[in-house]
């Protein structure tokens, strides 16, 4: 739950302001929640956008609901089935390339966790994207500072990541992931750049629930 709460503002801004949902795969915008464990935040926004009924939210992870523990394409508004980390960026690059090669107007947004950057596939994907001029691709990394076994700094430090992405060829931005005007102004700037862009959004795990904030607890006891 902590890692769901850390990306609520990011997903809210994306799904309420940026992501156009149409049925045409080339003109719609794609939102890929690569950190699939934040599914409840995504589902809340899908309900807010009228894609699923509010009443279904409370049935999350139950047999009577489509709302799986991790996003699944059978749920309206979910663009990729995720849950296994490190695969969303590769998928997003495939989508973004096809949109570009067909002259489509859609943009691809990939939301990742900072712990997720451990996955080797992220390296495979980010180095590939950098040389393909994908100016329709934006990655937002929810930097809540935790991975499953504890703080990033203890499990596996990743403080060098913005530098790495920049050197590889990404246009790198930093923002406060809980400050809505700051997320919007950063995204506006990122969208104007003629290169793939990555936003490292500083967040607090468990934001909004005092007992969880900045801890590795999974839920309020």
């Amino acid at each position, binding site marked *: 739950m902590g890692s769901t709460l850390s990306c609520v503002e990011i997903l809210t801004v994306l799904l309420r302001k940026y992501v156009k949902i149409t049925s045409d795969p080339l003109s719609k915008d794609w939102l890929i929640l690569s950190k699939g464990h934040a599914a409840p935040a995504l589902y809340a926004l899908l309900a807010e956008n009228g894609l699923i009924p509010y009443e279904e939210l409370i049935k999350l992870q139950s047999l009577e609901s489509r709302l799986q523990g991790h996003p699944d394409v059978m749920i309206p508004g979910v663009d990729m089935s995720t849950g296994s980390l490190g695969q969303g960026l*590769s*998928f997003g690059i*495939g*989508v973004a390339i*096809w949109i570009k090669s067909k002259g489509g107007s859609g943009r691809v947004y990939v939301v990742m966790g900072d712990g997720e950057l451990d996955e*080797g*596939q992220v390296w495979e*994907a980010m180095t590939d994207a950098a040389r393909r001029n994908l100016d329709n691709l934006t990655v937002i990394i929810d930097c809540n500072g935790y991975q499953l076994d504890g703080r990033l700094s203890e499990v596996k430090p990743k403080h060098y990541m913005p530098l790495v992405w920049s050197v590889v060829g990404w246009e790198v931005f930093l923002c406060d992931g809980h400050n809505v005007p700051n997320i919007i102004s950063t995204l506006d700037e990122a969208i104007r750049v003629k290169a793939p862009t990555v936003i490292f959004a500083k967040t607090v795990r468990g934001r909004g629930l005092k007992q969880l904030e900045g801890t590795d607890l999974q839920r309020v006891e």
Partner: protein
Amino acid sequence: MTMTINSPREAIGLVLAELGSEVQDLVVITADVGRATRAYTFGRKFPERYFNVGIAEQHMISFAAGLASAGAIPVVCAFSTFIMRAWEQIRNTIGRMSSNVKIVGTHAGFSDYADGSSHQSLEDIALMRVIHNMSVVVPADVKDILRSLPVIVKDVKGPLYFRVGRDYSPSITDDYDYEYRLGKAYIVEEGDDIAIIAAGPVLLEALEAARDLKRLGIKAAVVNLMNVKPIDERTLEKVARSCGRIITIEEHSVLGGIGAAVAEVLTQKYPVPMKFIGVTGYGRSAKNVRELLDFYGLNSQSIIKASLELIKL
């Protein structure tokens, strides 16, 4: 296709390059093996629809799934063994989403004879077969590739694993005129004493064994099981009923491959005595494919021996 081709990978490259004109959304993806798999034959002709992602098989698979979701028709070409390092990506993205991605695994079995066990793919059929939504096709020779791959790219929706070798490909099915359909097993020789079921180039061993068995008065049916999944239960049951004994042969591990797939059906439909001919363990280097087939007993002599044992039972 009129040209003479005698290598599976050459056939893959040429078929894809030919299909590229007709199928406008066809894209080919490879992982730094564009030359080795001949995917580059397509890439040279359609550079804007050819993606070489570098030595990055996991990325290649999820990337192909993204292309498919956006509307492209992706064909992934890489060495069979190294595609398997992306098994979890195939399972979790392509399988679970039933992505319209065709995965061509080349250099399968012992076809990469010199490179040895690291490169010899002997578990791929088992690994792909267990993925829900995934079809598995193992053509016997170039003719089988030419008759099946265009149909698969144009008419089959959903994930499919297409297993081929590198160059070793004796001509086997030239004289048979079946039309390709996913899910069909082809009885290429009729017989009612024993059935030999094979997939891949070892179908040749099955046909040779059947010919030799005939001299001993034993009539062997031979089945080309190029469609390993979905599997043709009706044809398998039919040959089990008419022959009463079955030998399977595969250039693959005896665990989870062709023999297992046949047994899964027949133990429930019509159990008959069976023997599996395949590989136990890893491969090794040799001077050519023939040496390895003989070294591991994937040959007509093994089939004859197993047949006589089964008939004596």
